[in-house]
């Protein structure tokens, strides 16, 4: 007993302070893209494995709802027009806000006051892996550990859609999982929210051209929160969830 207390005192509090930036992001971490004007040489567009880069008025635009953050585009860019910031705040309420270009005319993501009122103090999530690779799932799972302790904000994963307020979807929605996903969605009591985590769930990601997948959630349901990344950092997911329920602002 004494040795347990001693160990506890030695270990101290292991929970990360959030949203304080007191925790280190990985050395190679890529966050928000910053795009400068360029000559549109199309090298990045050709090399991008998920075709998330397209031309816009002054240069290019990057859709981080598709991007797998493989860094090929900025390695190939001779003008240095593409850079990635080391920020984890990537989650958005609307799909169009995930597209970054030189102009950066972002719609203000307005907090839904009704969501804050209903789910602000308690949000229970049902996770559905619709053909995911376990990367997004692992980064969601880690939020329940002592390090992140999502429970302190009143957010929790539950074992049944009947207990849940929101459905958190990962994976590109394979044909085999379509029915299971629909059943889960229907089993949730209204009002319900839809949260998509990862490039696959948002747009199909690297599986977008496959005949076996249905390329993301948007076709089926109204999505309330998009959390991009391949996979997203746990901080990105937690920030998105807190933003959704109005616990933190931009």
């Amino acid at each position: 007993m004494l040795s347990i207390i001693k160990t506890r005192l030695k270990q101290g509090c292991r929970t990360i302070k959030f949203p304080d930036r007191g925790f280190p992001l990985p050395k190679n971490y890529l966050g928000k893209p910053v795009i400068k004007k360029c000559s549109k040489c199309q090298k990045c567009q050709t090399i991008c494995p998920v075709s998330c880069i397209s031309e816009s008025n002054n240069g290019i635009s990057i859709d981080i709802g598709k991007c797998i953050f493989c860094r090929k585009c900025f390695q190939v860019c001779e003008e240095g027009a593409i850079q990635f910031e080391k920020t984890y705040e990537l989650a958005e309420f609307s799909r169009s806000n995930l597209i970054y270009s030189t102009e950066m005319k972002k719609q203000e993501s307005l907090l839904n006051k009704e969501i804050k009122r209903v789910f602000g103090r308690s949000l229970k999530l049902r996770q559905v892996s619709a053909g995911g690779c376990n990367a997004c799932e692992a980064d969601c799972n880690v939020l329940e550990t002592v390090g992140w302790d999502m429970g302190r904000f009143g957010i929790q994963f539950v074992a049944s859609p009947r207990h849940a307020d929101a459905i958190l979807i990962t994976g590109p929605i394979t044909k085999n999982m379509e029915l299971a996903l629909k059943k889960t969605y229907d089993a949730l009591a209204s009002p319900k929210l839809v949260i998509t985590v990862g490039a696959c769930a948002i747009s199909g990601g690297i599986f977008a051209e496959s005949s076996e997948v249905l390329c993301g959630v948007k076709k089926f349901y109204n999505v309330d929160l998009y959390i991009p990344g391949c996979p997203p950092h746990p901080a990105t997911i937690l920030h998105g969830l807190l933003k959704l329920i109005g616990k933190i602002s931009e």
Partner: protein
Amino acid sequence: MVEAWRGETLHIAITDCKGRFIRYKIVDPSFHNWTALEVVLRNELIYNFPLCNKSFNLSYCGHDL
């Protein structure tokens, strides 16, 4: 085909005439064992579920590979 936990993992690659991949499918033991878990749980009480579920230790992601 290689031995994995509670069964075999099978990698199937279909190539075209030039040797490039057309389809690549991985089947892990969970693919078969989810059905086995269903059979095990039939007509059983709910509190047996966690024990059975964790004994099988199936992958949620691998099922649909």
